[in-house]
């Protein structure tokens, strides 16, 4: 599975960003290749309106299977995420990326 975490940094021990639309970074982990990619989302986070859908659109470029985040995408962003078919897991807002991954694997996230 290819997994995208909304994060405040680019390392495994970076804190998760609880927001989706205005998340600072994407931390993308490919379980098969075990490779990590990151993306600086702060330009989108700076948009006055519509940051959520733009972030969702950017996310779709990475063709991820799973999104792990804190609060979950808001209304408009959620509509876009549904279109891309990405599975969304929430509840990881206060964890580090590594902790969020472990919580996901052990079925603790919603």
């Amino acid at each position, binding site marked *: 599975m290819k997994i995208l975490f909304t994060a405040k940094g680019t390392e495994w021990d970076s804190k998760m960003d609880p927001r989706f639309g205005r998340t600072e970074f994407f931390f993308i982990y490919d379980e098969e290749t075990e490779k990590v990619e990151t993306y600086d989302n702060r330009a989108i986070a700076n948009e006055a309106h519509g940051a959520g*859908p733009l972030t969702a*659109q950017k996310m779709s470029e990475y063709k991820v299977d799973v999104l792990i985040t804190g609060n979950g995408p808001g209304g408009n962003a959620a509509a876009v995420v549904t279109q*891309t078919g990405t599975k969304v897991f929430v509840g990881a807002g206060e964890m580090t990326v590594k902790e969020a991954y472990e919580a996901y694997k052990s079925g603790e996230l919603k």
Partner: protein
Amino acid sequence: MKIAIASGKGGTGKTTVSTNLASLLAESEDVVLTDLDVEEPNSGLFISGNKIHAEDKFKMIPEWKKDECILCGNCQKVCNFNAIMKLDKMIMVFPELCHACYACSELCPTKSLTMKPKKMGELKHYRSGNLDFIDSKLIIGEEQAVPLISQTIKYVEKNFPSSTTMLFDSPPGTSCPVIEATKDADLIILVTEPTPFGLHDLTLAVETMKKLKKPHGVVINKFGIGDAKVEEYCAENDIPIIAKIPNSRKIAELYSTGKLLYKELPEVAVELEKVIGYIKKHQESA
């Protein structure tokens, strides 16, 4: 003549002044009172009348038709508000973000986006004697007040002769809904309270009216509480204080029941007559 009743701060008594003023004026002439605080209109709670007309108000939103669309993404490119997005196999529109500039629709190479009306609010028109009352409300979830304010003003302009005394109860603050509500007014009445919050927000409102080059005067509501700094500010800046509505617990109690004040409280009626005098003076010199 168009008179807007505005304030910097919310809760100073804009609606109290407009509803009481409109009713008092209507005892002797035709008046139209319009509530432009479309997010939270309240004047209707104090005025009753027969509903003579209601209409839904719409804003235009692009509607996507997939048949001819080549998914070029030009629509997303030309939208400054991130209201339209090209996904893998479809175009998605976010109605609350759309400002109806028509760019995506008119610049679409395959004419796959047509502007269609979407309901964003309701306008209701009531009448009681000489008083016509118009009330516009945004539906919950709609975020933009300006289009509804603009359409409501146009309704009034269309349905009443310009010689009618038109009162507009404006939204509070100084951002663009207030600008939209006051930019075509002939005269502005600013309602404030003699407190630090009242003074601070009044200075913002005065700055705004000066920028719009609108003649304005001040009504001090809840006069008696707080301090004299609002009066000092007006004196220093040559802003006429039109009236001073007294503060009393009695008034707060009567207000809470949704009743008009001037019929039961002569001290309020006296001050409102001063406001009417101010308006008449302007009408004559205009």
